[in-house]
């Protein structure tokens, strides 16, 4: 990850410590680095995209959170998994705090929520089916 000018960077380092910063090289590019575009929701859109990538990383690495799983590379995976989780917390909060100014901003939030849902919920699943349906409406058929 490039040396970020992001205001989020200090928080990330507070969370995970500088020693793991190198491991974050594989994580998505810092949101603010992508937010240079002249768009009212540029930062929110970048945060949404980063959150979706973090969800994928989380899914790939969640085995590291299983004490019974002893596959090779576990120690590094645990560090990377914790870094991913810490970054997800920061990005999740930033997405929720942002007020969308455009439809694309709403869609960025909807994509992040859909990524967190992962699979289409069954009807009757505690409101998640309605959430998913609302997300699909906002994304207007986007795959």
């Amino acid at each position, binding site marked *: 990850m490039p040396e970020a000018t992001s205001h989020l960077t200090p928080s990330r380092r507070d969370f995970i410590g500088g020693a793991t910063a190198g491991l974050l090289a594989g994580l998505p590019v810092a949101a603010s680095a992508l937010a240079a575009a002249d768009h009212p929701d540029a930062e929110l859109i970048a945060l949404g995209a980063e959150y979706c990538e973090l969800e994928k990383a989380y899914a790939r690495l969640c085995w590291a959170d299983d004490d019974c799983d002893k596959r090779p590379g576990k120690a590094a995976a645990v560090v990377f998994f914790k870094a991913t989780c810490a970054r997800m917390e920061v990005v*999740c909060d930033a*997405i929720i*705090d942002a007020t969308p100014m*455009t439809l694309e901003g*709403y869609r960025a939030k909807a994509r992040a*929520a859909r990524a967190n849902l992962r699979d289409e919920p069954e009807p009757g699943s505690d*409101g998640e*089916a309605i959430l998913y*349906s609302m997300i699909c*409406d906002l994304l207007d058929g986007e795959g």
Partner: protein
Amino acid sequence: MRTETTRRSLFGAGAGLMLLAAQAAGGAKAAELDGELLALEAELQALEKEADAAAWSDDLNRILDRYWQIADRIGAIPARTPEGIQCKARVLRSVRNMLVVEDESDHISRHTLGLVRDLLGEG
């Protein structure tokens, strides 16, 4: 976040709602395109009030059965207007209220509450 402060100072917290309002289809169009959704929401909100007032009884079971039947139906109908999407946001809030969701710290709860807040202009 830094840009958030700027946005709010420029547009105010209700800007998201203003955006939706600007794109709103209008009452007549919403009624035409999302009439079933809006009618179901009205029935669902009435049932929520009935459930709040009802003592534990067979009548409450009937109310709740109908409530969840409508909630499932709303989740199955696509919204075609901003009013329809806002209708789903209100329904989502009602459903979470009926479920008495106490732990709202997980990511999906936070995303849900954030989206509902934005869509209903309560930022």
